[in-house]
């Protein structure tokens, strides 16, 4: 009955409906963190460090765009870290065999998308909960990559164009940042302005409703899984390129960084709610903290502890805000 008494409209705009004040908290946190670190260590805002942060943000953001959509459909993919390593190994191997960066990149992205497809089929066809299903594929991929190759696969042909994917620049901007920006903008447009984006929200908000309304719910979830997988392929290529090798041990804990960033950005694990702007801010907060701790020369164990605290604090603030809204 209380909820029924109409709360004043939060915002008359579409943005207002989907974007919560949660972002104001994140923006404030980001500003405070950046100003604080800059005061302590001026090199923090050197162009070299800003570019370094942007490149790290890019890697996470690329996958986080897919993960945001996946979480919006009320599913999750924990296998992205393990897949990231495997993508690099596969891509490097194909490049070594074919001597073609294009074919290697294609193979890497296709491999990532295939992992996504398998995850999606397990979830939608076998009806296995995605958390469990993707823990399963994560383990399979972690073991599988070693079965495939115990050693890092080196860039035998030393093709410079492969190195450029991760380490190259267009003007002063690193290529991964441009790739991430393109993916982010495209994802944003899809999620905000297209029927596909709206349907993703619908499936996550209430799958039965979506089905009764004539939406292809299975197809929509599969789409989100495959997209996330393909974006892991893109990120895996960049990581492989940065390391100039396919590293089977790479990507440890990557899935947690991605999911933490998405949740920090206000996307709900239970589906139907989330924004890419929030995800962008979430990635920035986590990566700036990561960078700041090194620049401040603090104990690096804090690189795990601080984001953990920030995540819980942000979610709690969000709960407080929602409670205030509900009154």
């Amino acid at each position: 009955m209380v909820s029924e008494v109409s709360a004043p409209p939060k915002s008359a705009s579409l943005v207002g409906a989907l974007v919560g004040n949660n972002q104001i908290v994140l923006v404030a946190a980001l500003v405070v963190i950046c100003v604080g670190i800059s005061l302590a260590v001026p090199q923090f805002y050197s162009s070299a460090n800003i570019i370094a942060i942007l490149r790290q943000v890019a890697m996470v953001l690329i996958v986080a765009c897919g993960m945001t959509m996946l979480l919006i459909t009320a599913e999750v993919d924990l296998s992205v870290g393990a897949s990231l390593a495997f993508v690099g190994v596969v891509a490097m191997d194909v490049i070594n065999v074919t001597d073609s960066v294009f074919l290697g990149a294609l193979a890497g992205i296709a491999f990532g998308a295939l992992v996504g497809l398998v995850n999606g089929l397990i979830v939608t066809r076998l009806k296995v909960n995605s958390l469990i299903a993707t823990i399963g594929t994560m383990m399979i991929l972690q073991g599988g990559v070693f079965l495939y190759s115990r050693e890092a696969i080196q860039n035998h042909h030393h093709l410079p164009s492969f190195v450029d994917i991760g380490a190259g620049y267009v003007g002063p901007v690193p290529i991964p940042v441009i790739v991430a920006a393109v993916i982010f903008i495209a994802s944003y447009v899809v999620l905000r302005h297209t029927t596909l984006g709206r349907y993703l929200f619908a499936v996550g908000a209430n799958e039965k409703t979506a089905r009764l309304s004539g939406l292809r719910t299975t197809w929509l979830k599969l789409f989100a899984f495959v997209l996330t997988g393909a974006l892991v392929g893109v990120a895996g290529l960049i990581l492989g390129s940065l390391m100039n090798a396919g590293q089977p041990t790479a990507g440890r804990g990557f899935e947690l960084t991605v999911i933490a960033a998405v949740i920090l950005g206000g996307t709900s694990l239970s589906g139907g709610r989330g924004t890419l702007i929030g995800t962008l801010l979430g990635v920035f907060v986590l990566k700036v903290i990561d960078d700041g701790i090194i620049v401040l020369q603090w104990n690096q164990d804090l690189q795990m502890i601080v984001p953990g605290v920030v995540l819980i604090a942000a979610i709690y603030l969000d709960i407080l805000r929602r409670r205030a809204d509900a009154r």
Partner: protein
Amino acid sequence: MPAEAATAAVAETAAPLPLEMTGIGKHFPGVIALDNVDLSLEAGKVHALMGENGAGKSTLIKILAGVYGKDTGTIRIAGRETSIASPGDALRQGIKVVFQEIALISEFTVAENIFLEQYPTGRSGSINWKKIRQDARALFERIGFDVDTNARTGALPISQQQMVEIARALAHEARIVVMDEPTSSLTPAEVALLFTVIRRLTALGIAVIYVSHKLDEVFEIADTVTVLRDGRHISTRPIGEHTHDTLIQDMIGRQIDDLFPRSRGQASGKVALSVKGVATEKLRDVTFDVYAGEVLGFFGLMGAGRTELAKAIVGFDPIDKGTIEIGGRPLHPHDTRTAVSLGIGLLTEDRKGEGLMLDLPVVYNLSLAALGSFARGGFIDETAEREAAQGYVDRFRIRTPSLFQEIKNLSGGNQQKVLLARWLLRGLSVIVVDEPTRGIDVGAKQEIFALIDQLAADGHAIVMMTSEMPELLGLSDRVMVMGEGRITGSFSRDEATQEKILNAAIV
């Protein structure tokens, strides 16, 4: 004897009332939920608390249950002024509230749940399980109800879980039992049983608060009725002084002349939906036609297969046999996507579970099925979408502060109107409505009835599944009765009577 002396004598002899709430006020940011409300109970009497959604019933009960604190007013229990700090505190003071959402631990047995806070222990401090089971059985005997005390609580139907809650009340020696909309998911037989148990409680001297907006029930069980509206106390009267009309008038603040408007003439004679020989696990050989411009009502008791039929003909659940044609075109493949594109859709009985996207704004809920028509190349024309949605909000008088209000903040009636608008925006020719007024208060019910009537008048074919007899008789052009998955009777509007329908329904 002078009047004053008589009153004084009564005051001296009578025991203090079990509960007196006076001048209760409660506000939430921006909203006054309760304003100077009084409520007093008599021992051994059933006091009905009525009002539309948003009237303040739930807030009042939650204050009594210790869920909310009050801003103003006093509470006296058995004559002593007190405050209720928490749900546990309420129970200690003898108040047991049975909420709509049962608060039992579903993995525990019935007996364990009853003695949750006070397990009898043996000398060693270990729990005396035998005694728990015996005591639990004794409690059920007192309320005249039999249930397996060793059963896992979650496995019991809601009606029996309510009985467990009532037994819990007795275990705590509660003097006040509050029942919040207890019959909203019960069958008629279960309702009858519940009333028997309530009468047992009153015979034990327990005061019962009965919250409901079902008029028939209130007339059957209540001794006194208090009506709230917009957080204010409107009236408290013995039930004998009320008629249906006066009670509704108190609740909605105006008179209802005609609950079931009828603006339409004869159906067109064009078959909009043709169902032939449909069979599923729950349905057997169901065959019927619906014509454009008519309301075909389906009645049946719990488990008769109404909802199953509704879900099968809109492609949500698979069918084993039979054909379904919409406007002469077969529903093939048998899925909702095809169904919607052929022009048939379901207004579900389970709004939260299958109808609403609770966290999403009104406009997204409203436009969901028709979104494709606002899109070019996949991009949504949001201005057109909003204009269309606003059109329905105005036409259906959907009360929402904004198109972007999350739909969970709307009342049941307004939510239902949004869901109906979702299908109209899509342009369906056949709408299957399942329990269209479940959980909706009286004023809004009338609006829903009017809308359904209007839709039929506009040429839509309406298939209405309902367990409410007045609704069935008031709205339907034809009535089909179901029992055990089959059609057991078919009546024209003129033939249909309550008696004939019930006879057909009881297989």
